[in-house]
């Protein structure tokens, strides 16, 4: 895509999310959609991180662990250290990135299914630690987290306190959507940069990349740290919306869902996780009417999708282009 087309696409996307969607919600009086869409945006951020680890050729089923760590970190920063949410959120991401460097250095030596299984175990470790550690308050979790305060920069007041908004969910919607666009713009930029090419080289053949003089261990830890940062930020905002975080806030099922979002959207496309999250989340919500058959239909559709489009939803567009 040419730069002008890119900018145009981004502008249209932002316009739809920031103007058209809120307008549609106001006209149709579906205020609960704000909450749903905020959740989709946050889950998409975390899934974007998972996608990046897929991009270097690792199956990551451990994003739930980092979302949980991020949620707890920001909650502890806000409640116990009294920091502002706007500082706590990026700090939570940094905490996750640091943790992931410590964990990633040894476990990123594993490949294929071994790495996948270790990350799966990691999610359980995070949940069990949250239950056992004293600072996380065990099964009670951390509750009554105050809503984000005012955001100021160099004396200018950019945003008033979230507590002063009449419609807090709307405010959170804008926060989440803006964060999602920032994260995915950064991911897109990253993948199309020199480092992105190096990541792609890792996916294709690590030994070959190493023989070309790449510092393979450093690069894969970098990718994993960015991935975990995104997971942590997602988890931190989630804790702020819910105003609470529990050991069961993010579990193995969430970790698997993050991975599924990437698969469904298509592993070859940066914006795949966004689409995958939207489809999976709304698919699940729409099936709510199906009552007890919800999970059956949902998983049935997932299996059928997998049979028909094993390379993700976005592959539809690309395969057609190839044929034309």
């Amino acid at each position, binding site marked *: 895509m040419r730069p002008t087309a890119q900018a145009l696409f981004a502008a249209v996307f932002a316009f739809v999310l920031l103007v058209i969607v809120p307008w549609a919600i106001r006209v149709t009086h579906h205020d609960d959609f704000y909450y749903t869409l905020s959740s989709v945006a946050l889950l998409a951020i975390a899934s974007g991180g998972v996608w990046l680890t*897929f991009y270097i050729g690792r*199956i990551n089923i451990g994003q739930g662990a980092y979302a949980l760590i991020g949620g707890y970190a920001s909650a502890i920063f806000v409640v116990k250290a009294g920091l502002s949410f706007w500082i706590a959120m990026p700090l939570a991401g940094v905490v996750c990135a640091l943790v992931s460097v410590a*964990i990633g250095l*040894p*476990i990123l*030596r*594993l*490949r*294929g*299914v*071994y790495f*996948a*299984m*270790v990350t*799966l*175990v*990691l999610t*359980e*470790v995070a949940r*069990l*630690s949250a*239950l*056992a550690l004293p600072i996380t308050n065990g099964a009670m979790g951390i509750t009554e987290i105050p809503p984000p305060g005012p955001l100021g920069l160099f004396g200018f007041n950019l945003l008033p306190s979230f507590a002063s908004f009449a419609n807090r969910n709307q405010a959170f919607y804008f926060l989440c959507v803006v964060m999602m666009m920032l994260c995915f713009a950064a991911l897109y930029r990253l993948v199309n940069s020199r480092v992105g090419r190096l990541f792609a080289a890792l996916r294709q053949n690590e030994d070959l990349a190493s023989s070309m003089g790449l510092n393979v261990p450093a690069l894969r830890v970098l990718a994993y740290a960015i991935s975990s940062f995104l997971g942590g930020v997602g988890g931190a905002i989630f804790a702020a919306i819910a105003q609470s975080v529990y050991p069961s806030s993010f579990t*193995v*099922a969430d970790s*698997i869902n993050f*991975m*599924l979002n990437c*698969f*469904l959207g298509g*592993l*070859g496309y940066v914006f795949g996780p966004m689409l995958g999250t939207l489809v999976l989340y709304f698919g699940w919500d729409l099936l709510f009417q199906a009552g*007890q*058959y*919800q*999970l*059956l239909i*949902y*998983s*049935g559709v*997932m*299996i059928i999708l*997998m*049979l028909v489009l*094993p*390379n993700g939803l976005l592959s539809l567009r690309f395969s057609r282009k190839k044929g034309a």
Partner: protein
Amino acid sequence: MEQVIVNGLYLGAQYALIALGLTLIFALMNVLNFAHGQMYVIGGFLVYEIYGRMHWPFVVALFAAAATLAVIGGLLERFLFRTVIRRSLREESTMLLAAGVAYFLDAAILLLFGEKQHGVPKIVRGVFVSDNLIIPYDRVLVACLAILFIVAFVLMMQFTKPGRAMRAMAQDRVAAQLMGVPVEFYSLVGFALGAMLAGLVGGLLVTITGVNSGIGGPISIKAFTMVMIGGAGVVGGAILGGFILGMLESVGLSVLHSYGDITYLAIFVSLLIFLSIRPNGLMGKPWG
């Protein structure tokens, strides 16, 4: 102390049987079967229905559960996994399929059997009591049966023609195909066999722990842990991993219980450390 060791051995025997099925499917097809725990649950519920509610003999119920799971496994391989492996650009896609199947089976189990915990009458009554050892006889029987099945499985893999073919496939699928092994047929057989083992152990354990529709996921995670300890795709590793996890769990529960519920946290953390030193587990081949 003797009690702890006996408990560990008993747990280990059943765990090893669970891990065997998972590792078999992984070795033959490179598929991480997320639905393994759900297959275990189906086996448990079938035995509950046939033996517990219809009061047919336990052996018949166990046989029926194993046969049903073998058919389910065969169908899954033939119509789902084989198709996706052929069409997909990336091997990992089978993981999404496996997760989808796990959800599907979870939902089906919930609809068919409900969410209640179910138990069945004991197969053998009585308890063995000595100075410092208490073992119910039904646990002895289940452990013996589990070990019997493990031995039968290992003998089958070592000395029969299908066993040899499957071992060859696990080593190198393409080479096996070039030597005239019908790999598609044996993939089907292997998947059916793996599912059957899951159903078998589910059917055995329903007599002791009972069964409910929510235990599938945790069972799968335990099975993954065992396979990682022993090394993925290696029969000996699965058995070893099963016994080690059983022992760790038994010892951990008795040693660590004064510190609260941290046995599994300790096991998982030591697993992470162990794997960063020995990435392929105890007996695994490099990079699965």
